[in-house]
């Protein structure tokens, strides 16, 4: 039986991972993440998760 990809988990995971990478790079000093950019990143992560949940099909 073929496994179906859970789009909600994938989108949420990718978004949270991207946010984590950003914060890690900031912590390592590779980039300076000011509040002006950290706030949109957090909002975009939450928005992506919500959007993925809302658009997920009923199976």
């Amino acid at each position, binding site marked *: 039986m073929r496994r179906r990809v859970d789009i909600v988990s994938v989108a949420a995971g990718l978004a949270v991972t991207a946010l984590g990478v950003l914060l890690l790079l900031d912590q390592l000093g590779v980039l300076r993440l000011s509040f*002006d*950019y950290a*706030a*949109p*990143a957090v*909002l*975009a992560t*939450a*928005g*992506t*998760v*919500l*959007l*993925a*949940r*809302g*658009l*997920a099909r009923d199976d």
Partner: protein
Amino acid sequence: MTEAATLARDPAHGMLGGVCAGIGRRVGVDPLVLRAVFVLASVAGGAGVAIYVLAWAALPEAPGADGAERRRRLSSADPRSLQVAAGIGLLVLAVLLVFRAWGFWVGDGLVWPVVLVTSGAALVWRQSQREGEPETVVPDGSAGGRERRGVGLSARLGSSARGGAVLGALLVVGGGLVFLWLNDALRPARDVLLAVVVVVAAAALILAPWWLRLVRGLSAERAERIRSQERAEVAAHLHDSVLQTLALMQRRADDPRAVATLARRQERELRAWLNGSGAGDSPPTTLAPALGRVAVEVEDTHGVAVEVVTVGDCPLDPATEAVLAAAREALTNAAKFAGTEPIALFAQIDADRVVVFVRDRGPGFELEAVPDDRRGVRESILGRMQRHGGRAAIQAAPGAGTEVELVLERRS
């Protein structure tokens, strides 16, 4: 490719060129959310107007057909619509903040009030559309419960719609006030506004007890009105059904068979009403109620009681309709030849198998003794089941009653 899968403009349901309506139909999002996004993108950097014009020029016009599924998906009553709206709202906010950080910004005094006003207007608009949608009544186990639950759901929907509309109105007014405040337009009116606020607050404090009493009185009156309507409905139903049947039974007291038939019909109708399934005139679309209706028809035609027990249900299709027709024939034969003994119909309906038994305690018969020109058993039961991929077995012996077994393996 289906209509819903094609990205196209939908001018029939749009406000300008149907771009948002078309995209919303394609991705299953309320177009109102997309319209809000375009408005905000237009205010933030002007990109919204350019993108809209490009999309209007690039997208073909959709054919005018629409469907119930699409309307359902676009319905603002869909709970997932809220998640989509919140998600898009957060993404738009993130983009606005990034634009602000980059300097592509008209100014806080314009953008944030427009954000508030647009969000509030979208909310008010959404609630106004929602009020036009039909109310959903949830079936319940009992008639009274059904009424109560229907009223409760309606009340909850109404209360949530009012709350959303009030929040939207507050956002619109708040956005306007923020715009005026940020642009220093409120300074001349500050003293007057302060006086108005104080007077309104004092009046609210004075009138609050009367207002609360009025609200409670209205709620109590509404609850009493609902209760009296329920009582009137139950009384009307009892008069139309039970009392009329009792009067009919008194008039036909000398005919026990007719009295029994009337009593069983009334019992069935009352049970259906109590269970909330009703006894509508529309033909059933699934096997279990169709078997029940066939039993009722045989009872009415031949005046013999038919005890029906069904477990499970499935939609009617050519194969299950064949089972239904064979069961009707078996019931008719039993009613004709089994005398006054009640007939039992038992059906077990699973996802992959349908089994129906029709039993009677009549005189029975020998299948081999049935003349070849009598086609009721051979064609209408055995042959019909075979033609539709099922089988039928008849166990009958003189003096031992008859049992007809109908089996259909369903293909999923």
